[in-house]
């Protein structure tokens, strides 16, 4: 034991700041989950607040809008995951056909940029360009004879806007992993196919696509773990009371009820519900990714 510490103390010392911060700011809040099973009153404290068991969770499902919120979350997240998988793949395949290196670089530079801007900036931009009072998008639509669309004030259009703008922000960046795979394909495969007289389309369908499948399966499977993440950052910046019915998701609801309305226990219960389901889904998706494509992180 003593010799263990003598040999390894510098390692522990170097880890000390990280582990202390990690315990304080990650593990202590985990113990705070207990208030999801209480009727927490700040002035009484966590220890003495009355115990209510699963009442808060029950309330989430009997709450008039509870089911609607879960449905909104699943719907928005599902379409985001779907389009954020399909569009980057198509984009990567199309970009891979470009021979001019400079053009390729310019396109990449442009499409990666929105990923790095925050939803505050992009939300501000969306609110301006989607405005019904002469926003540029509605002005362009006007020239095609379409009348003002209330993108951020109509529930259906709001969902559409949330999904499309998220894909717009992320498709370029999501394509990187597919582009890296495409670059790694052995050129001699294409040369051989060419000698056999295969057209470019045939080459793509019988060489490129099959070789991309493993990474596509991994990305698709891993994204299952995020089926309850409909985009808190994004929605909180562009939503408003008019679209709560269609655009309110679990996270925004937990925030509004929990912090703004000071329903600490209920807000925590909603958060715990999401965390636990998310954790289970992540574990399942990693297992599947490992099984189907032999994928491992750590």
């Amino acid at each position: 034991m003593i010799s263990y510490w003598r040999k390894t103390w510098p390692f522990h010392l170097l880890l000390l700041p990280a582990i202390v911060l990690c315990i304080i700011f990650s593990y202590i809040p985990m113990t705070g989950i207990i208030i999801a099973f209480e009727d927490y009153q700040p002035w009484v404290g966590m220890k003495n607040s009355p115990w209510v068991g699963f009442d808060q969770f029950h309330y989430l499902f009997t709450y008039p809008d509870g089911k609607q919120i879960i449905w909104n979350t699943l719907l928005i997240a599902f379409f985001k995951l779907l389009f954020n998988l399909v569009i980057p793949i198509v984009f990567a395949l199309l970009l891979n056909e470009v021979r001019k290196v400079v053009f390729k670089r310019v396109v990449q530079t442009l499409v990666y940029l929105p990923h790095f801007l925050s939803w505050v900036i992009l939300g501000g931009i969306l609110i301006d360009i989607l405005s019904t009072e002469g926003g540029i998008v509605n002005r362009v639509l006007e020239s095609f004879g379409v009348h003002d669309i209330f993108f951020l004030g109509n529930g259906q259009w709001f969902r559409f806007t949330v999904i499309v703008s998220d894909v717009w922000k992320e498709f370029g960046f999501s394509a990187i992993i597919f582009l890296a795979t495409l670059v790694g394909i052995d050129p001699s495969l294409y040369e051989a196919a060419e000698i056999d007289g295969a057209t470019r389309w045939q080459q793509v369908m019988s060489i490129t696509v099959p070789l991309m499948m493993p990474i596509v399966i991994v990305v698709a499977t891993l994204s299952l773990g995020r089926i309850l993440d409909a985009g808190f950052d994004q929605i909180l910046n562009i939503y408003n009371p008019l679209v709560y019915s269609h655009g309110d998701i679990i996270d925004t609801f937990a925030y509004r009820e929990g912090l703004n309305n000071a329903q600490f226990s209920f807000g925590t219960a909603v958060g715990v519900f999401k965390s636990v389901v998310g954790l289970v889904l992540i574990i399942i998706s990693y297992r599947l990714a490992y099984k189907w494509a032999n994928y491992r992180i750590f």
Partner: protein
Amino acid sequence: MLYRTRSYQVFTIANTIFLSLLGLLCILPLIHIFAVSISSRAAATANIVNFWPVGFTTDAYVKTLGNEKFLRSLWIGAERTVLGTIVSMAVVTMASYSLSKTSLKFPGRQIYMWLFVFTMLFSGGLIPSYILITKLHLIDSIWSLVLPTAVSVWNMILMLNFFRTIPVDLEEAAYIDGAGHLRVLWSVYLPVSMASIATLSLFTMVFHWNSWFDGVIYMSNPDGYPLSSYLHSMIVSDNLSRIGVTSDSIANFSSRTIKTAQIFIGALPILLVYPFLQKYFVKGIVLGSVKS
């Protein structure tokens, strides 16, 4: 030969046009916002500005940079970015050194690793974190924006994978000269890792500059908001007034040119570091995804 067939030529032209449009689509909204911000107030209000300023003026920027509240937030945003990056990088680099060792050299490594990784999978959530910050009396303190996010497990994994690529000979020579681990980290690892550390620092800076939610909940007074939080409250009230939920709010107070100028200033630091980011992130992602 293949690339000269007629149908492939047609495809190439269509593809080039399509990709150009896609690229433009990603940048045009930003250009529009910028064009509005340097147009005259009358032109902006009349909605006649597209991608080129009408009645060029820098009035909006002069006014924005003369706004005390905006400047205060800008300063707090810069402060949290610098402080947050330094603290996070120091903590992450030190931890990554230990974690980069094999379990043979550092028994117990695995326990630490799982403690960190578990926090990526599960968290106590918003309200317990908020209660904790309250109990620690960190409300209204800049440390509430710096400390909770300091341990970035993702950065740690990238960093330890990089440390593992450093040749063992290099550090063994140092051990023979009588150097300890702290010495090796400082004089062997850090000098050869400067490029990686710079890259991760850049990403951490972008993260801090873009973070707005912690500012909104941990600062009880908008005077303490970093720039991103300030912009968040600005655009939310802007949205509500445009939608017609609230009328004559504070948002209507400032003109469209000033709002767009503020948004553009918020985006500017990211645009400035973007060329450097782009150079590295492809490498970073590939590195992170292929290593064990």
